[in-house]
């Protein structure tokens, strides 16, 4: 889920860039040097997972998994997402450098919220059904939050002119939300069954 270059005005770009920079700074401070490889590995795995396309009707949607990333990484999701988005902007032209802050904010902020709300499900003694529910809710919070923040940024930039665009953007992402929730539920349930201890040691 990316906002393209040229859609947001300069004040919105600057404000969202500053907020994202703040989130990245907090994320880096909370990420000890010894946990850097774990954050990079989880970030890389989720980066690759987000390139998987799932058929929906006659088309397909790609996974986003920002909620699952936030659940597993906590505040470290901010630096992990800014790295992933910078690479995507440079290598694939998804998003861009000027809108990097806005895109980081809209994906990472709901991811941190998913972590704050659902991290209890990562404990080794959590019931499998609770883990599956947390995985599904991570998808709902992650994509739902991203839609809300994208809508807020667009409304701040274009006001009434972007009203229809906001509605269309939200409707287009409903299948993404459903798929992310379904995949997150099964993936977290499998992880909890196979590696409960490793799951409990992910960064906080």
């Amino acid at each position, binding site marked *: 889920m990316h*906002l*393209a*270059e*040229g*859609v947001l005005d300069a004040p919105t770009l600057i404000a969202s860039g500053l907020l994202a920079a703040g989130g990245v700074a907090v994320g*880096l401070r909370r*990420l000890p*040097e010894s946990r*850097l*490889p*774990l954050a*990079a*590995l*989880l*970030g*890389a*795995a*989720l980066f*690759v*997972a987000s390139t*998987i396309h*799932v*058929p929906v009707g006659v088309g397909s949607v790609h996974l986003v*998994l920002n909620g699952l990333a936030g659940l*597993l990484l906590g505040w470290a999701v901010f*630096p*992990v997402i800014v*790295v*992933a988005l*910078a*690479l995507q902007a*440079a*290598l*694939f*032209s*998804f998003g*861009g*450098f*000027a809108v990097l802050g806005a895109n980081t904010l809209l994906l990472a902020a709901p991811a941190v919220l998913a972590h704050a709300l659902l991290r209890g499900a990562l404990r080794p003694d959590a019931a499998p059904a609770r883990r599956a529910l947390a995985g599904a809710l991570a998808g709902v919070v992650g994509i739902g939050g991203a839609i809300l923040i994208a809508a807020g940024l667009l409304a701040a930039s*274009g006001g*009434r*002119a*972007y*009203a*229809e*665009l906001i*509605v*269309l*953007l939200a409707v287009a992402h409903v299948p993404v939300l459903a*798929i992310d929730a379904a*995949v*997150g539920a*099964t*993936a*977290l349930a*499998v*992880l909890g069954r*196979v*590696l409960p201890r490793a799951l409990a040691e*992910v960064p906080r």
Partner: protein
Amino acid sequence: MSCTRQADHRLRLAAAVVASAVIAVTPQPASVAVLLAAALCGCAVAVALGETSVRDVARRLLAVNAFVALVWVTLPWQLTARGWVYWPPGVDLALLITLRANAVAAACLALLAGIDAFGLARAAAGLGLPAKLARLMALTVRYVGLFAETRLRIERACRARGFRARPDRRTLRVTAQMVAVLLMQALLRAERVELALRARGFSGLYAAPARWPRQRQQWAWALATGAALSGAWLLPVWLAR
């Protein structure tokens, strides 16, 4: 433009970031159109030099225009008490967004063509990225290739067992299991990497990035790129006088 190939990666990345920022906030469609034309010329040179291909340029611009299509579906129309009505200012806005999005994508492609992910990570570190973020970027780049191979292996194995992705529950289950396998690999490998780094006496410090280039040629490239960007931006303003 053949100088672009020899230009320091840091200068090229800095130029791409500056060009993106300038284009993203330029309000005059004529200026953005000239910048888009200049960026497309840069892409043509990059294709001629073999740093990218026409197919890659087309694929990237197509990806950019997926969002732009949503803009064209919505902005020229407004829902009023009389139903949907045509709204000319929306067309102007959609045109400006289209020009900006394509100009930024083409400029980044032209300036960064031929630099791989490792080169980008080194260039970003050399541009003053915080040390920890630069290390995170370098490690992420290293592991993305690894997991991409794992993903291809799993997909091949699935295909060999007759799996075809369809809009059904089985596809969702297989996709979720693929994600779980990638995450399991990450968690298990992280433990090994942490132990290996400690065994090598890793102190949390990495070698400093290379010093800035002193050759006049490098700075001449940076000045020429800056002049081209400013010239393309100012030309329509000057012509309109």
